[in-house]
């Protein structure tokens, strides 16, 4: 080297050092990519999302069009997955039903996160009475089983897909409150929160810039896993007639109709069952993979 000036060499070193110049996002993505089951989960989820998004563009029959000449037909070239009791194409209903299921999963989790995370941050950061009130309410909600609570709320709000999403969202909120509160307790004890207070940042800035981003990774994992639970919950509510209203297609209501024809037309139950299974599996694998990739201990 021509110039042995010390500060320059320090800088050149760290720029070339692969460990120091490694961004966390890259590291997470790298770990995720090498995680086989996580990639499988990601592909499954992506597949169903693409189906749902592009449903209007696919060359499939109208999911609501009945055909009295083709009632409960077995899978064939004309109807790849068969037809239901009103002669509607099962494949088409399955694809359009993916919209309802995924929408219910994502929207209800969004509701749960946007209610649960702020409440958890308040409870964890302020402690005392705030924590006591929020935590006792959370525990009261947790005392009721998730699905029972969702059913009760959906019945109370009235049967519709929107109300089902609200009911599922509220039922899933306590988990996020608890998780966030616990994370906040550990993050608030970090030195960087003290140093934020020492430079005089107001509380709302500390909460939004120092606490919130650092409690996010586990919340993200929990949210992904909860989407799977919410999809099952939506299917259950639709099965009971509390979710998506007929004739609009939904995997839960398709199963409900199919249960009357299990021996005559088993495909009517088989395909929505498989779809629910695959999408739930996909979200679970994705969540597990995210958890491993975001865990700094598993290097």
């Amino acid at each position: 080297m021509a110039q042995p000036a010390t500060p320059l060499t320090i800088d050149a070193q760290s720029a070339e050092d692969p460990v120091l110049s490694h961004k966390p996002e890259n590291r997470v993505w790298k770990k995720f990519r090498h995680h086989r089951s996580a990639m499988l989960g990601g592909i499954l989820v992506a597949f169903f999302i693409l189906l749902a998004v592009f449903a209007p563009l696919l060359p499939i029959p109208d999911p609501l069009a009945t055909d009295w000449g083709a009632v409960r037909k077995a899978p064939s070239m004309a109807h790849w997955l068969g037809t239901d009791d009103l002669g509607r194409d099962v494949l088409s209903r399955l694809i359009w039903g993916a919209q309802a299921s995924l929408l219910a999963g994502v929207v209800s989790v969004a509701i749960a996160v946007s209610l649960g995370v702020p409440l958890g941050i308040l409870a964890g950061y302020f402690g005392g009475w705030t924590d006591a009130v929020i935590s006792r309410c959370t525990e009261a909600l947790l005392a009721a089983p998730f699905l029972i609570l969702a059913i009760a709320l959906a019945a109370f709000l009235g049967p519709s897909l929107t109300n089902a999403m609200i009911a599922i969202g509220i039922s899933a909120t306590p988990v996020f409150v608890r998780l966030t509160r616990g994370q906040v307790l550990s993050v608030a004890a970090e030195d960087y929160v003290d140093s934020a207070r020492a430079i005089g940042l107001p509380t709302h800035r500390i909460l939004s810039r120092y606490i919130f981003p650092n409690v996010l990774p586990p919340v993200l994992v929990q949210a992904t896993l909860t989407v799977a639970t919410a999809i099952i919950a939506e299917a259950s509510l639709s099965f009971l007639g509390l979710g998506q209203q007929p004739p609009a297609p939904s995997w839960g209501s398709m199963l409900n109709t199919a249960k009357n024809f299990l021996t005559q037309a088993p495909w009517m139950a088989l395909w929505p069952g498989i779809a629910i299974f695959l999408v739930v599996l996909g979200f679970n694998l994705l969540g597990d993979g995210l958890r491993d990739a975001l865990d700094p201990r598993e290097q």
Partner: protein
Amino acid sequence: MQRLKLVHSDSSPNDVLLEVSDFSLRFKGAQKDLISHVSFSVKAGQTVCIVGESGCGKSVTSLAMMGLLPEGAAEIHGGGITFDGRHYDLKDQKALREFRGSRMTMIFQEPMTSLNPSFRIGDQIAEAVQCHGAHTAEEARARALAMLVRVGIPAPEKRMREYPHQLSGGMRQRVMIAMALVNDPALLIADEPTTALDVTIQAQILDLIRDLQAETNMGTIMITHDLGVVAEIADTVAVMYAGTVVEAGPAEQIFNDPQHPYTIGLMSSIPKLTGPRGRLATVPGMVPTAENMPDGCRFATRCPFAQDICKTDPKPQSFGNGHVAACHFAPLDTHFEACA
């Protein structure tokens, strides 16, 4: 590039910036004071070192000075703290926040964990600027960049865009110092700023703090257990033991003529390169816990000279130039010569 002007026109060298007077603090519901009758003051441009072993109340005192003690956990039991001539109330967080980070600031022991891992260096420093005054984002970033230059970070524009984990410990401590000093504080409290760093970096960081101090005439309180650091930078020293100041005075006098048995114990436990070799002297025993604090002199349980009189509170004895020691037997040499 914009050059920071950090000199305070309103402070002359003899202004007392911070005065801690007869300050006592106890945890809610505790029987005894955690911090008992602590007094010292810091002037502009002065470096005060608070020395003592772990658990002697150094850090609690510094948190109290910043008004950062957890609300509801501790209460002031006597005396108080004045900063900029204003007596302050630990319950009035809003008033405290006004000067915290602008007039008075603090750096912490652990540079590895004292920066927010989710934000870029530049954003964190700029945020410190923006929360103390109406600055545009560009102004704040310009000041952050200028400050990074001043603390000697190479390639500062590149570092601005990096995350804390991409920097080494020494670099992070420089960033912490930049963040603390970006608002031209009049007083810096440094809680063991070099403990977590290796020795060569320690010297660099101490030099940096000293240079910045000379430039800006800020007062500095350095909290440390490292007497080597004290010898290097202190103007005055306060030796703390179990929540009390046992001896205080000009650094030179404390090092050359320590008067309290605890200070003597601390001094003799420094390894020396010259002189006879042998086992390093230690002060036997441990600092008593808050519940087991003895009455009278708190050092009596470990003091080789302790006698019955030590069960009463020792009066501070003065030795000139503000050198005081709280011991019944001070000055030790004449006292024990008389006994012998």
